[in-house]
């Protein structure tokens, strides 16, 4: 890192390349005839840009610290025991039912999306012939799915699952909508981690007489597991934080989905609960408390995901 210093003319210079420049370059009086004028311009440019990029990075980091800090500082004092009571009523504004519902929603959506995404990726990487048209189309559609905003998923879920299939505003409609939403994410991470498994593994397995299926499940999948897992956890983070796709597919009932037909109960997840609380504006303290729980939950999930992903990159480095 170049050190900053203030030179005789009061200008800020930085780094060794600056001190080497000709003294006349600093003399404002002769600027017009100065043969080194360009170098002055270059120096101003350099210093300005150096500070600009630092400021931008500082801004980005500052926003994160401010946002998370603000929510934590205002929210933690509002984390009362009554927020975690088993049933919701308008006095305790408990977030417990929506927390349980979030868990149910996540498990259901993952149960649908994980096998679909992983199997699809297995086909793309292990089975599909090179340069196959189908693979191109699948990649294109997966990319399209990834770019669709959650409100459009919500509308589709409302039209298809809620109305067309008569699932109603329910846990099932919500989780199926979310499953489609995170499918491309799981597919892509699985694809990437399958591709990072060296071909020599497959060749070795075939050489020992194992079939294709055995090779995939016994040899290729295990080393790719951390990558797949990190994708699944990343998907979990998206499910937990999702609101727009759920408002008109899962509804906003405040009780825990239970009983024999719990799949068809209307439920509200933590993020939807958070939205309802803050748009009502009646329970600001409780909203802050809920925000803390939601924020910490999502950040923890994402942290676990990147931790697992990091063990994967370490593993492949060791192999190489």
């Amino acid at each position, binding site marked *: *890192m170049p050190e900053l210093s203030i030179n005789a003319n009061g200008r800020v210079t930085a780094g060794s*390349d600056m001190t080497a420049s000709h003294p006349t370059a600093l003399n404002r009086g002769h600027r017009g005839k100065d043969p080194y004028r360009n170098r002055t311009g270059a*120096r101003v*440019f*350099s210093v300005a*840009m*150096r500070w600009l*990029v*630092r*400021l*931008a*990075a500082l801004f*980005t*980091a500052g*926003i*994160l610290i401010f*946002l998370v800090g*603000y*929510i934590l500082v*205002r929210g933690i004092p509002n984390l009362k025991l009554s927020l975690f009571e088993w049933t919701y009523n308008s006095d305790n504004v408990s977030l417990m039912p929506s927390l349980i519902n979030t868990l149910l929603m996540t498990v259901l959506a993952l149960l649908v999306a994980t*096998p*679909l995404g992983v*199997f*699809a990726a297995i*086909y*793309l990487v*292990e*089975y*599909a012939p090179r340069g196959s048209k189908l693979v191109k*189309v*699948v990649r294109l*559609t997966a990319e*399209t*799915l990834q*770019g*669709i*905003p*959650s*409100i*459009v998923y919500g*509308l*589709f879920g409302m*039209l298809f699952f809620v109305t067309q299939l008569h699932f109603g505003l329910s846990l099932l409609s919500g989780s199926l909508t979310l499953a489609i939403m995170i*499918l491309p994410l799981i597919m892509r991470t699985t694809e990437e981690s399958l591709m990072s498994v060296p071909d020599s593994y497959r060749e070795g397995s075939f050489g020992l007489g194992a*079939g294709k*299926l055995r090779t995939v499940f016994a040899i290729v999948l295990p080393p790719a597991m951390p990558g797949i897992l990190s994708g699944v956890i990343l998907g979990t983070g998206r499910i937990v*934080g*999702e*609101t*727009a796709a759920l*408002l008109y597919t899962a509804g906003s009932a405040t009780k825990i989905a239970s009983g024999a037909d719990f799949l068809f109960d209307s439920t509200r997840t933590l*993020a939807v609960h958070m*939205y309802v609380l*803050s748009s009502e504006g009646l329970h600001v303290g409780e909203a802050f408390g809920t925000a803390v729980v*939601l*924020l910490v939950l*999502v950040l923890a*999930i*994402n*942290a676990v995901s990147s931790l697992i992903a990091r063990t994967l990159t370490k593993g492949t480095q060791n192999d190489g």
Partner: protein
Amino acid sequence: MENNAATAVVMAGGTSKWKESAMRILFLACACVSICAVALICIFLFANGLPTIFKIGPLNFLLGTEWKPSADVYGIFPMIIGSIYVTAGSLVVGVPIGILTAVYLSRFAGQKTKKLLMPAIQLLAGIPSVVYGFFGVMVLVPWVAELADPFDGSGMSMFTASLLLGIMILPTIITVSKTSLDAVPRSYYEGSLALGATHERSVFCILLPAAKSGVLSGVILGVGRSIGETMAVIMVAGNQPRMPQGLFEGLRTMTSNIVMEMGYAADLHREALIATGVVLFVFILLINFCFSMVKGGKEHA
């Protein structure tokens, strides 16, 4: 023992062939799910939305400046313009800061700073949009209200929404730009230095132009995220269904139009909201198309 295993393999030979092909078909079917999903989404949105658009009249619907569900007048031009304004505003905030941060991370930061900052940006990407919206309501709205006071404006405004969205698209722009900056061959930088350019000049005049298609695709992804964002916008934009009046006045986007009124809408009103979703979907498809064009161009180069 070995013998047993060998006979087991031989005996399984017949069924395993069957199993192999069954599983192959299963995998193939799963791969086709994403195609089916896109097809279903297109079919259901267009089948529900297009008839409505034609019932209202495409010009009346797309260019009508009045949205009055009580009088059965549905023109979504204010919302389209609102979405475009807010997205443009978010780019004004997010693109310069995002690209400069990416440049810093890629070419200026030391190892330690990078180790701290990269996870921070991932965290920023992981924060749910409701939490962003809540932060906007609690912090940005009062602050903007004070700022807008001399102009007779309000805190829930285009400015607030743009600012919040600009922050939300930062991680997308930063990660994509940084990846493409990192991918520029080292020889470009070294060549520039050898010709006497400073570090900054090399970075901004050689590396950044070389990475421009990657940076551009990051910006396009940011546009997609911005125009599709719902919860954060609905909480800070004011949501008045009228033509945008100014920087410090409230406006309504297509996304917030859907969420605001879908809860109680019926009949033609509900259909008009679905049609709004279709228009939004077409915007997103166009943006996706631009994205794959830019990306495709990069692969050919």
